[in-house]
């Protein structure tokens, strides 16, 4: 999926003036929701995350000087909020009573049977367990490239990293993913 077209901050009165959160929300909420879902993994309440992201965006709107694209700015907020969510989730794992095992935010193609659906959910959980064992920089790039289907150039634009760095991270992320996959495979056999 590619990035939204509008790179300028939406304003209430057209091209100039005070940035308008309502317009920002309308233009970018679906994209932000997709990023949040992919970055935070299964079990995340996407509505809550989107709410939180736009609350942060509202707080920081006055600081937005237009040096970066609005998508880049929003992506960075999303990444930080998703990271916070993952930290909380990691913490919750120490408290079994508080941990809610649920897979939300994913959809299943209409032709899947319940068994297929269960398998798919388990696969999703496995994928995110493997991704969670990676450093964040590799995890993010792999998610954006494989799950969000962004090109290297688009990832570079979003994250603010150089294109060459993106490729390095992606190569390493792939290596680590394969290592993790083999480890999981060995453990399950």
């Amino acid at each position: 999926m590619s990035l939204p077209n509008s790179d300028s901050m939406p304003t209430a009165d057209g091209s100039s003036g005070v940035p308008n959160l309502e317009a920002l929300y309308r233009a970018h909420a679906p994209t932000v929701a997709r990023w949040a879902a992919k970055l935070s993994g299964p079990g995340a309440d996407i509505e809550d995350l989107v709410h939180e992201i736009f609350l942060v965006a509202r707080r920081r709107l006055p600081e937005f000087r237009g040096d970066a694209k609005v998508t880049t700015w929003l992506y960075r907020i999303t990444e930080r909020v998703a990271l916070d969510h993952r930290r909380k989730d990691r913490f919750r794992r120490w408290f079994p009573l508080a941990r809610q095992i649920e897979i939300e935010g994913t959809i299943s193609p209409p032709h899947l049977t319940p068994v297929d659906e269960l398998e798919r959910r388990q696969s999703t959980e496995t994928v995110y367990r493997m991704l969670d064992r990676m450093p964040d920089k590799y995890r993010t790039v792999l998610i954006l490239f494989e799950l969000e289907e962004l090109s290297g150039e688009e990832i570079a634009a979003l994250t603010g990293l150089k294109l060459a760095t993106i490729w390095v991270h992606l190569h390493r992320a792939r290596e680590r993913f394969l290592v993790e996959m083999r480890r999981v495979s060995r453990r399950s056999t």
Partner: protein
Amino acid sequence: MKQPRETHVDERTPIRERWIAQPPGASDEAVAGALLRSAAMVRPFGGKELAEVGARLRSKERFRPRPLVWQLAIAACLVLFGSALSAAVLYVLRAPTRSQQELPVAQPASKPVRHASLGTARPTAPIPPPATDPLPEPAVTPALPAPVRPSRAVAIREKLAAPVQPASASPEPTLAPVPAAGPSSLAQESRLLARALAKLRQEGDAEQALAILDEHRAEFGASGALLPEANATRIEALLRMGRYSQALALLDAQALIANGAGREMLVARAELRADKGRRVSALHDFDLLLRADAPADSVVERALYGRAVCRGKVGSWIGARNDFERYLATFPDGKFADKARAAMKQ
């Protein structure tokens, strides 16, 4: 010494093929692709969710406790618990020492009982319970009040509650409800859109239509009452001009549903995604269009053929064959019928 340098050079090589688009197989990459495909589909953030979160943002709902609050509360509990435990342990460990220190002191014979009781009763006394409560469950609302600075919280609440101020009066942006377009502005929007549509559909001048739409954007921004229609027209114009990447970028940002006019846009997005090699996303769109109750029209025709091709490219041969068969059964004289037959022969 050469090995790291070669690795370094290799690592900078652009990757064009995604694992997720790999056909099923036994190789590690194919297995990884299959795993990742399962995680790639997320529930679309549709109009209902969009409206709900928008309403929450607009409402005066109190902010949720921030993670920092939790972290501080938990840290405080841990510190208190740790302190209490350390104190108890120290108390227990030091008690015999104290009694030993006191032993050499010559005591009057009449008071041995008191020392004996002190020396034995203290170490065996139960460890006092920690002064703190057990660690709170993180999922519930914290008992501690959120340490939001009162002035800030009040200011935010007041700001949310305040009516919309002119831009010059309020430096901090507020989440104002979308200004209701008055009859005159709506009429103006309608006129602009009608002009754009006439240029696009009657005169076939997509470039001019786009210029009018830019005028609309400059005039009404993203708060125009006819923004969805303007977006749809813009997409149509971009497609006619062959600016597919821009059209796709705009389509990607839309929360589309497989109903009414949304179907046309959804099928266009699916085709563009498939064309860009984003087959998993394309398949997702095609699946939405090909639900059981979908009418057998041109949209379904395109979706059926598109899904068959995508399935073939990701190695789902049986699925592709099923779709081609369904296509030929439903649209025997369809515009892709020859291609479908050729694919079936292969």
